[in-house]
């Protein structure tokens, strides 16, 4: 079980949870499990072609998965995943 941290804007689509425990050995599987638990999150994370949206970053611990193996990046039991979307308020 890895833990995914959700940002405030996405919490309404995940029963207001700040953190969700998910199964999976890769980032892709972990995100799939997250969106199976909370289907309303899917359109906020993925485009219609199934790719991660370009204003949503996913980090494995402190590293952006775009610079690792993207969805195929291995996730261990003790790893923390964070979803950090673009925000613009000022």
């Amino acid at each position, binding site marked *: 079980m890895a833990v995914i941290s959700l*940002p*405030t*804007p996405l919490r*309404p*689509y995940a029963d207001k949870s*700040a953190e969700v425990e998910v199964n999976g050995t890769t980032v892709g599987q972990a995100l799939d499990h997250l969106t199976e638990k909370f289907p*309303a999150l899917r359109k*906020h994370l993925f485009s219609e072609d199934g790719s991660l*949206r*370009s*204003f949503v*970053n996913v*980090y494995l611990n*402190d*590293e*952006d998965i*775009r*610079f690792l193996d993207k969805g195929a990046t291995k996730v261990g039991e003790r790893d923390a995943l*964070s979803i*950090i*979307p*673009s*925000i*613009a*308020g*000022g």
Partner: protein
Amino acid sequence: MTHLTNAEIQRYSRHLILEEVGMAGQEKLKGSSVLCVGTGGLGSPLLLYLAAAGVGRIGVVDFDVVDVSNLQRQVLHGTSSVGKKKIESAKERILDINPFVQVDLYDQPLNSENALQTMEPYDVVVDGTDNFPTRYLVNDACVLLGKPNVYGSIFKFEGQCTVFNYAGGPNYRDLYPEPPPPGLVPSCAEGGVLGILPGVIGCLQATETIKVLLGVGETLSGRLLTYDALNMKFKEFKLRCDPETKPITELIDYQQFCGIPANGHEQRKNAEGGIENISPVQLNSRLSAVGLQLVDVREPHEWDICRIQGATLIPLREIEQRLSELDPQKETVVYCKMGGRSKKAYVILNGKGFGRLTNLEGGIRAWSKQVDSDMPQY
């Protein structure tokens, strides 16, 4: 070399006795210049502290006037400034804090035509804007001019801060290559923001600005700092130059790039098209019509602030599950705070066969201005 007067030496004594600042550093600050884009939530603490710290020349860009709803977080402005130009209010406050600062005012929205010229004279640019088009514009112009861009952004209880385009480091497009499509991410005016949040993030930006000007410490270049006020957590993530990002060679049409008008607030107009609007005055005359369904798609805590009599509350996020509570044969009007969420509700209901459907233009905010002046505005 800029020298300090005796009055300035007295004023900055707590800096002067810091080894990392000293006379040389304070003179450097006096000889330096910063452009602050936006005088809102982030711009407020930024300008207060940059002025107090003795940055010699401060440019201020804003086109807005002070609204009473700004005062919950924009501590640069006061109640007596409501209705005044924000840049004028900013200048008065800055000069009251520190009369040794030169303040340049730019009464304009920053755009592709004026950005390079406006930013060119300054050593550092600080991004305190409130919308995606201006953020990409500030970033791209900083890249083209080779200037550091001290970035901060906020939403609800969360903030982000970093330094872009500094010492060969990454820029905004390395972090987020593209903005969200219009409508997917609400603005602070729609989604709300904790008033203290920009204070925290703006102070982080001010700190980074001073460090860049002095050339001391380790800046946030290459690191994204995130802050979750609700759970009181700071986190740090690595930020790298993305080799897949297209190089920035010119300023583009940022409204088109983001699909929404810049300098949004209430002026944001319907970009989707095909939505039939009803004005508050028209709705008022239709309210007594038999069988009219008025649907409020805001959240329950907003409903508690004010509502239009006769409305039914169905928050946007629940509307698809609660369709059975509505009759598609009836004339239906949807509304929210400002008209953004209700447009999404309109699209959903339109797809479910609601034939006689309209959207309240400008939301309950416009209603309170045009029809019911006793209703509180939020």
